[in-house]
Every structure is written in C-alpha cells, then in structure tokens.
C-alpha cells in the first residue's frame, strides 16, 4: 500500500505541473486574442476625450459619443453601406457558383476531377497585388471599375475556393442513398435536391455564406485599388487612417471586428469539419 502511494506521488506531481503549464498556456493564448478586442471595446464605448487622454480606463464608460462621431464622419456611412452591399453580393455569388461545383465534385465522376480540385486551391496561390494592375485595366475597359458589383466579383473569386470546398464536404456528408430514395419516390434530380439535400445542408450553406461575407468584409487591397468613389469601409478607413482622430480609428476597428467574431461563433463547427478535426 505505502509503496504504491510513494511511487504514485511523483507521478501526480509531474502531472500537476503539466496541468498548470497547460492552463497557463491556455490563459496566455486567450489573453492574446481577448485583450486587444477588449481595449477596442473600451475605447469604442468611451467618449472621445477619454480615448485621447491618459491613463486609459479599464472599464467602458458606455458613452456612445465616439460611435456617433463615427456615424457622422463624412462618407463613413456610405462606406459602411458599400461594405454591406459588396459582402452581400459576394455571399450570394459565391454560394450560387460554389455550391453547384461542390455538388458536382462530390456526386459525379468526370475527367480531370482531381486536377479541378487542385486548381481550386491554386487560385489562392496568386497574390492579389500581382493581379491588381491587369484587373484594374480590364475593369476600366469594361466599365466595372469603381462599382460595387465589380468589387464583389473580385471578392467572389477570393471566397469561391472556400465555398466549393466547404460545400463539397457538406454534400459528401449526405449519403447518396437519400437522393436515390427520393428519385425512386417520384423526385427528379432537381426536386430531390430541393426536398432532401437542400434542407439537410442548409446550416452548412449558411456557414459557408457567412464565411464568404466575412472574406469580403475584411478585404482591403482590391477594394482600395479598384474603387475610388464607392469605397468599402476597410478601404475608406485605410485612406483616412493617418488623418483621422484616434477615437474614429477605434470605432472603425470595432465595427470591422464584430462581424468576424459573430462569424467565428456561427461556423466554428464547420471550420473544424473542413479541417478534418472532430466536432466537439
């Protein structure tokens, strides 16, 4: 008995130490993410005077003056509206184009299927700055420059690979027998899709749509190059970064971060699935 405890004691000690290390690691990583967001929150919800003075408070004042100032800043609301429009269009386009491609990849055997999958990923290998100049020239020629639609097209190409791959894994998760059963019960390929497959993948499609939305929402380079009048929020903030007061930057930053945070919570399950980690 005593022997056993004597041997067990050091083992528990190392295990305890390991646990402390583990917990410390988790705390540091969480702080890494949460602290900047928290400062952003405090400064956004404080009056402009507090933001521009020292020392800074650690508790938000719940003063909406900074946000009001942000809303009143010339062009800011238009930029916000443009961001929403472009992101919305990107979301719709990338699902409309991406979901059928994902379906085809998971359900049909065709020549060059593997190559097609590789190409989808390779589109991400081209740095946008490299494409920006030819794209700008092309857009000016076709009259797509400085339009929300033109920018949405560029953002769609950025979001599309993810839309295809996420929907591919969603469709692959639905047994083909369910569709076949629907076919034998009076469905065409299309009605089988709308009555059986679509309801089953709807949550995943939503996640993939939000993902596309956020990709567009956060994108700044193409937005800055391809638009002048119709700037999105990111491009507008970038343009005015050095001239605008501190509280404006904080408010703008906060407005940009919020959708990303909501997105992470909404789709974490599907991100895990996409990366092949079991859901927890």
């Amino acid at each position, binding site marked *: 008995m005593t022997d056993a405890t004597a041997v067990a004691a050091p083992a528990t000690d190392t295990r305890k130490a390991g646990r402390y290390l583990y917990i410390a690691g988790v705390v540091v990583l969480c702080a890494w993410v949460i602290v900047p967001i928290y400062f952003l929150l405090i400064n956004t919800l404080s009056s402009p005077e507090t933001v521009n003075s020292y020392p800074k408070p650690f508790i938000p004042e719940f003063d909406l003056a900074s946000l009001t100032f942000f809303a009143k800043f010339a062009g800011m609301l238009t930029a916000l509206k443009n961001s929403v429009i472009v992101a919305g269009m990107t979301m719709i386009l990338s699902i409309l184009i991406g979901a059928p491609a994902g379906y085809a990849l998971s359900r049909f055997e065709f020549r060059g299927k593997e190559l097609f999958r590789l190409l989808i990923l390779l589109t991400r290998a081209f740095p946008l700055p490299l494409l920006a100049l030819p794209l700008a020239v092309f857009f000016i020629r076709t009259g797509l420059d400085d339009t929300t639609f033109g920018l949405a097209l560029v953002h769609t190409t950025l979001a599309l690979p993810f839309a295809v791959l996420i929907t591919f894994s969603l469709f692959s998760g639905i047994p083909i*027998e369910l569709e076949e059963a629907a076919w*034998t*019960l009076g469905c065409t390929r299309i009605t089988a899709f709308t009555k059986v497959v679509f*309801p*089953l993948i709807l949550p995943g499609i939503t996640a993939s749509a939000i993902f596309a939305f956020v990709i567009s929402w956060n994108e700044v380079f193409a937005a800055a190059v391809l638009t002048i009048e119709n700037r999105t929020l990111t491009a507008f903030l970038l343009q005015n970064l050095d001239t605008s007061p501190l509280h404006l930057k904080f408010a703008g930053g906060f407005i940009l971060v919020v959708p990303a945070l909501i997105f992470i919570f909404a789709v974490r399950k599907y991100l895990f699935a996409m990366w092949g980690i079991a859901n927890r």
Partner: protein
Amino acid sequence: MAEIQIKNVAKTFGSYTALHDINLTIADQEFMVLLGASGCGKTTLLRIVAGLETATTGEVWIGGRRVDHLAPKDRGIAMVFQNYAVFPHLTVFENIGFGLRMAKKPNDEVKRRVERVATLMHIEQLLKRYSGELSGGQRQRVAVARALAMEPDVILMDEPLSNLDALLRLEMRAELKGVLADSKTTAIYVTHDQVEAMSLADRISVMHQGKIIQAATPIEVYRNPAAEFVASFIGNPPMNFLRAEPAGEGKWKVAGQIIDGPRTSKGPLQFAIRPEDIRPAETGLTATAKVVEPLGAHLLVTSEVDGTMFRAVLDSDLQVKPGDKLTLAPQPDRVRWFDPQTTKAVA
C-alpha cells in the same frame, strides 16, 4: 399487372464485368429472391431494374413496357435500401408520405395511406418521431412502409432485414411475406441469407460471379441443384461430393461401392448427396468418424470416406465416437450427379 423481364443485361465497371448476360423473367405478383455470395452482382442487378444504374447492354421491361431509358420515378417501382435511407429531416409520417406528397395526393388520402401502412408495419405510435430517435429495426420498418405506401407495381428490396437481430429478423420476415402477398406486388428481394431466401421466395435466382446459375422454386433449388455451385452453396451443412468412376452401363464406382447412376458415356462424374439423406446401414460407404457434434435433435458426424470429407446428419440416439467405422447408405432417390468438366448436373 407487372411482369419484369430482364433481357441480355450486362454491366461492366471499367474493365471489371459485374454482370454477364443476365436473362430473367419474373411473373406478375411473384416473389423473386436474388441469392448469392457477397460481390456477385445482386445489388447491381437490382439497381439496374430500379434505374439507379444503367446497364452496359440489354433491356429491362416492366409490365410490358420497356423502361431502361426511363428515370426511376417513371418505372412504377419502389425500393427499400440496405441502409434504410430514411430522410433525417422529416418525421416518420412525412417519410412514409413523401412519395404520396410528390405525387400531389390530397392531404386526407396521404394521412389515410400513411396510417394504413404504419399499422401494417406496427409503427403507428412512431409517426411523430425523427429517424434519429428510432432504433435500427424501427428505421427498417419505416423504409419498408415508405415503399409500400406508394402501392407500387414492383417493390425492390436490397437486404432489407440484414441489420436486424436474429429474433426481429424472423418476426419481420413473416410479416413481410404476409404484407406483400396481400398487396399483390411483384417483388425482387436481395439477400445472401439462404434461410431467408428459402422461407420467402416463390422462386430463387442463385447468382455467382455475375451470372444466374439457377432460377427455380426453393425446393427445386434445394433438391435438384442445376450446378455444383448451387449444391455446395445451398444447404447447411452443404452437400457431400465423391468421385465416381464409370463401371459399366448405368453403374458407377463410388468409394469402392457400385451405385446405380446416369447412363452416359462421359468420364468420371461427381456423386453428390445431402448429409440428411444418409442412413447407417448393413451395406454402403465405409466412413471413419472424425468429429461428432450433437445438435439436439440430430448428430452431425463429420467423417472421412475415400480420403474425402463427408458429413452426415444422423439420429441423435446413435452412439458414435471419433475413430469409429461406420457404414453409411445414401438414400437412392436423393443422389445427384454432376459433370466435373461443366460443373452442371447430369440426369
């Protein structure tokens, strides 16, 4: 009226031939069982009839209509899938009524027909549940009920009882037989379980490596196997085979005994007899008992005759020990003969 005709159907996957020139006619309201070992092409044949797979060559006719160019929904069939395929986003009620809704039947008719088949399959108390809230056996019943609700001319079933435990299987088997007989449906039923095949079938088609070896009534398949494969595949324990040398007109020498056989000029034949058609007697084949297994009502004796394994199902009152010498007489009218060259039966 829904007679099914399968004419010269072949199917290749790349370079692999899954089905070779299948010809089969299934009469109206007949219960046909496709029986064969795993990978012999049963599912492939069923899917070709359903329209989920296209035959490489050949034709499929249902009810006097050529259907192999039609979509599954236009063939007048319903199918039960091996792994249920119950829609997870719909209740049991909506699952069973799915086909009726697709056919735009009025609400009260859908309700009436769903409730009727649900009662038939004993799942009327589950109608509000989702498939995630059902056991495997219940899901299987939903799948069968969903097919029956369509009141199809033809019902196709791919091992519909394979995922059930032995007891439930026995119960469902009897239910299914009754329900299908009442519904006057033509049925094709795929299984690799020979007991299931025997008990359900009007006729059994024994398949082997993409071919139909024999299509006949269960008793015929059991008593008069058309080929060695059928003889050794059907029956548990399987048929015994011994080498037979010609010994004059209609006489054959089997393990030193002269036995009456077919009058043919062919060379050596295979003598075959079922283990339960053997009796201990004064004269007969000399056997040395190797293993003795009491099975309650019977005694399964595995012995050696002429250097070949030979099984006999004997009365359990018999006193046999391993090493004993036995004299076993085959029941003359149950002896069958096969040509080892063609593996076909010889009359």
